[in-house]
């Protein structure tokens, strides 16, 4: 394979400038259909509202912890829009907005974060792997799943989400290499939000851009303005198409920013200043898309209002659904260790039963 074709664009692909005006994208990328952009807008509105709601729920003690993705909505939503229903998604803990946007039940999505039984949704039914905490580990699973789809003759694609920090883990390297050698239909989608908890990108990597990692594995790669939904969707469309049609894996780096602290428990003032955050407010993905779509006459004021109304309804429902405490049967502790409990687990269950009788 030629070397040049593997290298990303030297600057992030962009379709829409920060002020919402259209700019000339590099050749080879299409503007996605208007209907998809509108859908993207609506979902971003709901996604952001959901995110805000989730953060609020931590303050009320209804969620144990919540890692916000405010500012990353263009990535979260484009990732979902680029996939078909029968494609698989391998998310991290920060990708709740993407999951909700894919149609998963918000209560199920938030189960982990409210202290309920680990993964709350059905990975097989939803084709969404459990939200992954050990960083980068899920990227290899994604490769295995992609290889499984290929083996079964399905034309599904797998998208693995990962953060900038996660790319430093050895598992990410192994995943890229395995994907390339196997020619697996997997898209690695790096949301480079510039921080790994408190560690800024400059301490994470000295690469010109993370997308330049692709060539070292023979993987095509691209970097994109992660706060420009039009660009992210266009690039992910191309990446997914590449993978689906037998081109092998694809690496996309989206440059974005984590507007909120790492989680509600984090104190971001310890490691970054207000000015930096404010600079990124100007690059807000939602405002940008709204301006762009309105200026092109695609989005009406009514449609914007409708989107916000839908978002409020959605948030209200989430609030209500999370009002009840998660239920939990202590004996379930012993149910899911193995398909059939060992004698030792049965004894331990009996011990717990005797304690609960007391």
């Amino acid at each position, binding site marked *: 394979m030629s070397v040049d074709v593997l290298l990303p664009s030297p600057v992030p692909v962009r379709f829409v400038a920060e002020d919402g005006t259209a700019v000339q994208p590099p050749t080879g990328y299409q503007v996605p259909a208007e209907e998809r952009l509108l859908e993207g807008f609506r979902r971003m509105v709901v996604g952001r509202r959901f995110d805000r709601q989730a953060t609020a729920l931590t303050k009320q003690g209804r969620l144990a912890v919540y890692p916000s993705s405010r500012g990353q909505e263009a990535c979260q939503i484009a990732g979902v829009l680029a996939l078909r229903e029968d494609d698989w998604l391998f998310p991290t803990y920060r990708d709740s907005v993407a999951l909700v946007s894919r149609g998963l039940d918000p209560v199920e999505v938030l189960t982990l974060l409210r202290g309920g039984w680990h993964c709350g949704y059905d990975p097989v039914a939803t084709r969404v792997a459990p939200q992954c905490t050990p960083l980068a*580990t899920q990227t290899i699973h994604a490769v295995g799943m992609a290889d499984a789809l290929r083996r079964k003759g399905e034309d599904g694609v797998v998208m693995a989400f990962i953060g900038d920090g996660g790319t430093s883990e050895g*598992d990410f390297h192994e995943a890229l290499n395995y994907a390339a050698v196997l020619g697996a239909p997997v898209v690695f989608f790096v949301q480079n939000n510039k921080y790994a908890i408190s560690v800024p990108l400059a301490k994470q990597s000295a690469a010109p851009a993370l997308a330049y990692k692709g060539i070292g594995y023979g993987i095509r790669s691209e970097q994109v303005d992660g706060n420009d939904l039009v660009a992210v969707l266009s690039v992910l469309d191309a990446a997914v198409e590449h993978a689906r049609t037998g081109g092998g894996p694809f690496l996309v780096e989206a440059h974005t920013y984590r507007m909120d602290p790492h989680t509600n428990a984090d104190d971001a003032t310890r490691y970054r200043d207000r000015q930096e955050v404010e600079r990124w407010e100007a690059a807000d993905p939602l405002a940008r898309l709204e301006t762009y779509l309105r200026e092109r006459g695609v989005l009406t004021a009514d449609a914007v209002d409708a989107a916000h109304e839908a978002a409020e309804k959605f948030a209200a429902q989430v609030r209500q659904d999370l009002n009840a405490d998660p239920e939990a049967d202590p004996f379930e502790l012993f149910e899911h260790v*193995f398909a059939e409990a060992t004698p030792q687990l049965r004894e331990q269950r009996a011990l717990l039963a005797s304690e609960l009788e007391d």
Partner: protein
Amino acid sequence: MTTLSMAQALNAALRDALREDDRVLVFGEDVGPLGGVFRVTDGLTKEFGEQRCFDTPLAEAGIVGLAVGLAMGGFRPVIEMQFDAFAYPAFEQIASHVAKLRNRTRGRLSLPMVIRIPYAGGIGGVEHHCDSSEAYYAHTPGLKVVTPATADDAYWLLRDAIADPDPVVFMEPKRLYWSKGETSAGDRRAAGFGRAAVLREGRDATLVAYGPTVPVALEAAEAAARDGRDLEVVDLRTIVPFDDATVVASVRKTGRCVVIQEAQGFAGVGAEIAARVQERCFHSLAAPVLRVTGFDIPYPPPILEHSHLPDADRVLDAVDRLQFDDEPDLLHLAGEAS
């Protein structure tokens, strides 16, 4: 019944599993055309093609992680870690994912996969090639841990492991790869997972062993018999699930127990066995449960491994300390050594 070496029996098990179930995949480092450094996968790529038995890039977390993804996608991977210590790079994948995926997903995903690990020493291997790593896995909830000591068990336990709905860490004692035994492949055998085998009956004391120390236990029992001492030998076969019933019945009968393991002793499987036995057989015990293990040292260089490895003499010394003669001798254990 045919006579096979343990490596051949394992090879036969893989072959039969590949033949019977399309979902079975074999992969790892050098398992393809080379047939594995111990030839356990010999001929499989040739017979089943590169899609069913293949070499991976050199990365153990990658091998295990790939297997997790393939198992999530409906396959039944049987993977090889080339040597014990070279499974450590995959430890996170094993401990945080292989062991937990069923649990994390509330039972919605099961993970039928087998991680084959040639382990332990006694073959003159250089550093990092002789670790006894079974305790790391046995201590990790969600993993079954299996280790055969005979060719027949190698065949059947591997078949059972591949058929199991849960992940199995399949530990192959390297130094038994070439030891031959009758194998009943084809002719389905009874005992499955969680059943220990009483390899020799005896009245005076029970030797509990697994994997590489089973032949040591048998040798010790032979020697003891010549001295008029009648030892029972129990081979665990599976460490997880553990067969309390067989071990407890034996010790309650004999009243004495020596546990034999090749691994360093501290917090090893032998400690678990000793703890369980005294919990369950306290009133039957005429002496403390003793352990014969490797020393608490990194695996030594080949020239010194014979000093490290538990052998029949060390086992017999322990048996001698089982207070048959009403003269307790715990000095070497309890006192400060010089």
